[in-house]
């Protein structure tokens, strides 16, 4: 220790680190410094986030916000072959609403609620419109009495529909009304990217072909936010596409979201109408296992007819756009750590994918959990390093 202090300097620090075999992909990247008599290990950690949808960008932001002071320097890089406005997050309508029931998966309910509460804090903030955040109320409709959803206490003003309200929707005999939030990817993602750029995060327009590629280049932590294509980096039988097709129409007289449900056929299989800040998204397609990202006229007809039947005034709406996307469906979100070793090279991977049709709804809760996992990685590295002193 004394010897180290006497010969303090970068070269000496490297020798010191080498001597103590501090775990690292590249020892030339490590620096040690003395702080008031104790040896604090200052690591520059290199984090590679793969994926620039809402999950990737928010994970990067959360990690940076939480650890930029304690991990210095904290280098975050984002790798993606698709950026806004071409990601799935951009195509989604942007309504905050999880699936009806978490089926015991209380973690996901917690992450959904954290996201809602987080977004709500921005609702009166100057940036709210730039972020694409605003409130919207609306209807969830059923053909039979249905238990309250897992998110009933997360939203605002949740209540059951009155008979008079149900009269508006022939064929539906039960339903809910609540105020929720909209979070439009086309605005939110650019906002996230601006925040990340301000923090010195670097963006690479590149498809990562393998985890190894990043591990070999000296990345310490990989955050895997690759959504539906996660299987290309690591096979995952549980991950399947839930294909959706939507129409964007001009119907500015519509001020509520309307989501119908058929508990037998499952989520997103029946018509839904979600007004946005500009256009109205109408949909009702969920095809598990269909990898096509092309729009087809059959689904277009189905959506158009079923939504017009639900809301007759749509007959006058001008159709502006068609879009198809693949929801990254999984039995539950994969949000966990994994250590990858390729010979001497080693990295930690934090998986954060499989958010189905509720990516925007759950993103912040998951980003925080990803940051928690990152924190554990940092802690473990520190303990290992200091245990060698």
């Amino acid at each position, binding site marked *: 220790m004394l010897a180290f202090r006497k010969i303090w300097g970068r070269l000496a620090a490297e020798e010191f680190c080498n001597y103590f075999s501090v775990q690292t992909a590249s020892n030339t990247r490590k620096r040690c410094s003395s702080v008031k008599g104790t040896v604090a290990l200052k690591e520059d950690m290199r984090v590679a986030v793969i994926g620039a949808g809402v999950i990737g960008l928010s994970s990067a932001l959360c990690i940076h916000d939480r650890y930029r002071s304690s991990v210095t320097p904290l280098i975050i890089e984002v790798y993606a072959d698709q950026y806004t406005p071409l990601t799935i997050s951009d195509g989604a309508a942007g309504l905050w609403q999880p699936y009806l029931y978490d089926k015991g998966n209380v973690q996901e309910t917690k992450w959904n609620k954290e996201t809602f509460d987080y977004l709500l804090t921005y*609702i*009166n*903030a*100057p940036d*709210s*419109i*730039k972020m694409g955040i*605003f*409130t*919207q*109320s609306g209807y969830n409709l059923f053909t039979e009495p249905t238990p309250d959803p897992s998110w009933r206490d997360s939203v*605002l*003003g949740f*209540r059951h*529909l*009155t008979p*008079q*309200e149900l009269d*508006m929707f022939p064929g539906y005999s039960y339903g809910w*009304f609540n*105020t929720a939030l*909209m979070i439009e990817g086309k605005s939110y993602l650019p906002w996230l990217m601006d925040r990340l750029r301000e923090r010195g995060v670097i963006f690479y327009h590149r498809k990562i072909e393998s985890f190894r590629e990043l591990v070999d280049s000296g990345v310490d932590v990989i955050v895997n936010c690759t959504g539906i294509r996660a299987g290309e980096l690591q096979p995952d039988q549980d991950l399947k596409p839930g294909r959706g097709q939507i129409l964007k129409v001009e*119907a*500015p*007289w*519509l*001020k*509520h979201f309307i989501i119908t449900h058929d508990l037998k056929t499952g989520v997103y299989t029946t018509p839904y109408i979600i*007004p946005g*800040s*500009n256009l109205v998204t109408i949909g009702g397609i969920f095809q598990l296992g269909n990898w096509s990202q092309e729009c087809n006229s059959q689904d277009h007809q189905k959506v158009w007819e079923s939504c017009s039947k639900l809301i*007759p*005034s749509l*007959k*006058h*709406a001008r159709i502006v756009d068609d879009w198809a996307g693949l929801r990254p469906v999984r039995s539950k979100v994969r949000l966990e750590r994994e250590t990858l070793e390729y010979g001497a090279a080693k990295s930690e991977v934090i998986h954060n994918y499989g958010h189905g049709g509720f990516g925007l709804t759950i993103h912040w809760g998951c980003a925080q959990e990803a940051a928690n996992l990152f924190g554990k990685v940092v802690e473990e590295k520190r303990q290992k390093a200091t245990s060698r002193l």
Partner: protein
Amino acid sequence: MGRVRVAVVGAGVVGLSTALCIAECIPKCSVTVLADTFSPDTVSDGAAGFVYVNKFPDTPVDRQRRWLKDTFDHLFSISNSSEAPDAGVYLISGWQVFREPPSEKRPYWADVVLGFRFMSDAELEKFPQHKFGQAFTTLKCECPIYLPWLEKRFKNADGQVQPGRVTDFGQLCVNYDIIVNCSGLGSLSLVGDTDLHPVRGQILKVQAPWLKHFIRDGDGLTYIFPGISSVTLGGTRQKDDWRLTADPKDCSDMFERCCALEPSLKKSQVLTEWVGLRPSRGGLRLEKEMFQHGSRQVPIIHNYGHGGGGISLHWGTALEATQLVKECIGNRYLASNL
């Protein structure tokens, strides 16, 4: 007995709806609307079209409630039909917030609107200056779209429109059997009704398409009503103020008040401003009067003094006025057979 010739004076929301109601409900009537002002220049056109109404102090509550309910039901069925965008009618939800809890927390119209309830504490957090609130769903009826739609329906029912100012009822008595007076503030000169007075209202229209909820301050002075192509911000209530030009001070004041309620408005683009004079009266005048014209007595059905509740009450008062016209015809028939 030939056709009954009815003259409806006024082509705002009250005049056109009353004329339509009569034309559709009483086939033997031949109805003509006479007015010097038509959409988009009437007072009705500038109003946000939010279906909600303050109490008229001099009209029994149950009568007001009936007018409101009849109007609500009429607009509600349009909003659920494919005609909704052609008529400019649609549902809107939102909040009425109070700085201090009002004496009447549950107003007489609570069961007319949809889903009326008190706001939760969590909801009130969005309005830190306000301690109490009501959440509900009501209707919007935009007259620049609705009035032409009414007029089209009226003409399909063989209604006639005659532009031109009516300066006294006497001139109508020659060609008409029954007069229906829907002249709003015009009744000041037409009828000499000194109970009638203008309450000046100035509004702003801004571009803020992300706003989906109405927000109204219980004091009635500050409100935000999202519309089809713009958001109406208001407002003012200036009694006996006849100024029809916009006041920049009113403008900046109401913009500030609205931004305090909804901060995202700071990012909105102001499109235009407008001033209208609410035809206000202690009580809405809806009654029959016999007008002496030479040796004849011509019935006049008065239907004016709706104040800021023209759109909110129009169909209910149109129905009641139509009923009064029916009674006149019934009496006439009887009289002619005596």
